């Protein structure tokens, strides 16, 4: 089993609903976020293009955050989800420094926090909160080992890219372009 997410940049309108839904689902404190929106503008008026994308932890196969964690708080669970055990985390921030996606933040309660792919929901057969709420349905989630999962199907039919492939992290967020 390998959980992954595909983000359709052609449909994302950058509304930020994924960010609020994550905030209310996961008790993310105000002023922090586990997911966020990036807008890239290219070209010169009037030949301009925008790419909008919803970003979060890439749940990398080769996770620098897990490798550098001195206490083992950052770890990988079944399905490839990168998790942080808050009780084991000493808040040293090494993982924050190592992440090429800037996906982690220091929670005011003294530990490092980030996207869990809503593991508590996925374990119950539900979708991550961001996927469930997205008005444009631009987020696809599922098991890459299952060819019939939403994410597998999205990747079969579309061109995609990953972010910072040069970092060698084998990220599991795929951006449909």
């Amino acid at each position, binding site marked *: 089993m390998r959980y992954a997410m595909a983000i359709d940049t052609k449909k994302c309108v950058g509304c930020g609903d994924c960010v609020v839904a994550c905030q209310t689902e996961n008790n993310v404190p105000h002023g922090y976020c586990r997911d966020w929106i990036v807008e890239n503008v290219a070209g010169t008026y*009037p030949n301009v293009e*925008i790419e909008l994308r919803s970003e979060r932890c890439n749940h990398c196969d080769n996770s620098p955050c897990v490798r550098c964690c001195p206490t083992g708080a950052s770890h990988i669970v079944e399905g490839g989800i990168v998790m942080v055990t808050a009780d084991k985390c000493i808040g040293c921030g090494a993982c924050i420094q190592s992440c090429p996606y800037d996906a982690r933040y220091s929670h005011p309660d003294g530990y490092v926090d980030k996207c869990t792919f809503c593991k508590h929901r996925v374990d119950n057969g539900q979708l991550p909160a961001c996927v469930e709420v997205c*008005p*444009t349905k631009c987020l696809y989630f599922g098991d890459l080992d299952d060819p019939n999962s939403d994410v597998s199907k999205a990747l079969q039919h579309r061109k995609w890219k990953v972010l910072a492939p040069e970092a060698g992290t084998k990220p599991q967020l795929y951006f449909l372009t």
Partner: protein
Amino acid sequence: MTTRRDFIKISTAGTGAAALGLSVLNWNGVGKAFAGKDSEPVSDTELKRYPTYCEVCFWKCAGWTYVDKEGNIKKILGNEEDPHCNGRLCPRGTGGVGMYNDEDRLKTPLIREEKDGKQVFREASWEEALEYTAKRLKEVAKEHGPECVALFNHGSGGKYFGTLLKAFGSENIAAPSFAQCRGPRETGWIATFGEAVGSPEPTDIRDTKCLVLIGSHIGENMHNGQVQEMSEAIDRGATIITVDPRLSTAASKSKYWLPIKPATDIALLLAWIHVLIYEERYNKEYVEKYTFGFDLLKEHVKDMTPEWAYGITTIEPSVIRKTAREMADAAPAIIVHPGRHVTWYGDDTQRTRAIAIINALLGSWGSRGGFYLKEKVHLAHQKIPPFPKPKRTWRDAFPGQYELASLALSSGICDATIPTDDRDCSFKAWIVSGTNLPLTLPNMQHTIDAMSHLDFMVVIDTMPMEVTGYADVVFPECTYLERYDNIRTSPHREPYLALRMPAVEPKYNTKPAWWIAKQLAEKLGLGEYFPYDDITEQLDWQLKQVGSSLEEMQRIGVKKFDRQDGALYFKKGEELEFNTPSGKIELWSNEMAAENFDPIPVYTPHPEPEEGFYRLIYGRAPMHTFSRTANNHNLWDLKKENAVWVNPKVAKLWNFNNGDLVWLKNQDGIVSSFPIKVRITERIRWDSVYMVHGFGHSKKALSRAYGHGANDSELITKVMIDPVMGGTGMRGNFVTFLQEDPGKEAES
């Protein structure tokens, strides 16, 4: 101008609220919003859910409010049965919980009083505030007549105050959603098709082959169902054509983006009509059978070629032709979107008419993939006495003007509140429910002047918005998550009902609008117009008339009914009568001609900015609604302030760097109260700047929103009135930049 009405600050501390409010805080407690490390996310099965429909914007998506065992609202999710949202709320609906949790909320009734020579607000009990309001309203009625009282409203609560006002003897019920927003569209549509577009717009985007957006930025306006259907259209490969001087989000997803020179849209529309007619690409059968005035239209646009329009719009003739042909190829599954906020240049009814005409030529009105025939459930109303006939209405303030306006003009009532020699009666009292007039009407200072002339003003709101500072009495309304309201009956492809019920008890000393209106009615001796002790009695009675019940709706939230009015689209060759003077779709409008307006739209040039000035274009951000959500903590987290978009060429002239703070000064010398950050972007033309509306709040009681960004409403001092229906065109203002602090003192 002397003011009898000093702006009063509402303290953020709300000291008295605790004393008055604790009695109603029973099981829900004060929000323990985010618990931190020990608080794992709670499984949905451990939460109790209550149906609601959203009040953060007018789309009114139905959803569920999830509450934990301690009575904290945890989250709000969409109702899957609801066609407005299909189970997916937008960021504002998801973040609606921030409205409930906002610690800056109005917490208890307030009464203006003079203390040590200074006007201040005093906290009051409901009984005292209601009694005082009734007394003051009676005084105004006695001295000037009840028709000198006006209601401004937005949102669900306004209905109850509308009933109250009509019972009191006034029909002056205005909503900025008409003259400041979609009024020209409804007027133009009525003149053409004999009916208004309405809300939600019956655009059949789900099945369209071509969607044309003219300054309409779906995706930045989160009109939820439309955003969802546009996303499906992208998936299906439908053609999207966007006309906008700015690369909007929708423009970036379009096959064609026409970066039009601002204020020239009518020229483009006429050229499109020219191509459709002279290349014979219009829907001949539909036009022949259903429309009136085709030959006059054909003659009218004879010389309005794409080459003619190119010189005006800067859109190349080949692009105008190509897009017109794509539209024709898709017809009748084509939507030239009527837009929503369409009060731009004062000829807005005419521009909307041109849009309606193109839809008629392509046969999209009443066709699959064009516009569907909407239907709603008509709920019965309990019998109440007839309303008294007022001696005069708002129309009497404007003899012979705006005859085609189908609703009262907020801006007109505002104007007619300032006494003039030629008017024998001005408005003397305002009831303001859920609309922050200084940031909603153009020309903020003018609105403030009008309010200073009032004998009495009462404001009902959930937040200490700017408008509350000018009130004599402030009634704190509870949020939509804490109250019942009328059943939602808005039309759709199939008729639906949706229920809003409280998920928690009202926080602080706040009350629902129905209760406030009913109490006031009783104190005014008008209690019989509210024939129930509790609103639930009326809701249950209404629901039972249509075979449902309050109990059923509390369980399911949304109920679908069968269509009664026939098919979703016109049948081919069906005989139809439209509600126009000719009984046909009027390409040449008899109604407009009768009022001495152009029966077919014409292009008129509009003023352009002088050197060093840029046209001020404003719009929406998907995570905020108007000026009402800037303080919502969840939404503030997403967007705290607006920025002024500046083309890199312009930025170079001014030596701007991204994030520089500037003050904006308009053509009339008005300077923004607060500075705004520069955003240098290729997404905007060099003759225009752009900013999102709704920021730059001047009230410190809005502790997060205060002073963040700039307020476009104070810069919109030039208003181009639509002579047809009184709409306030607001896109004719030009601004320049001040890089030094002008030292202007901001309010409060």
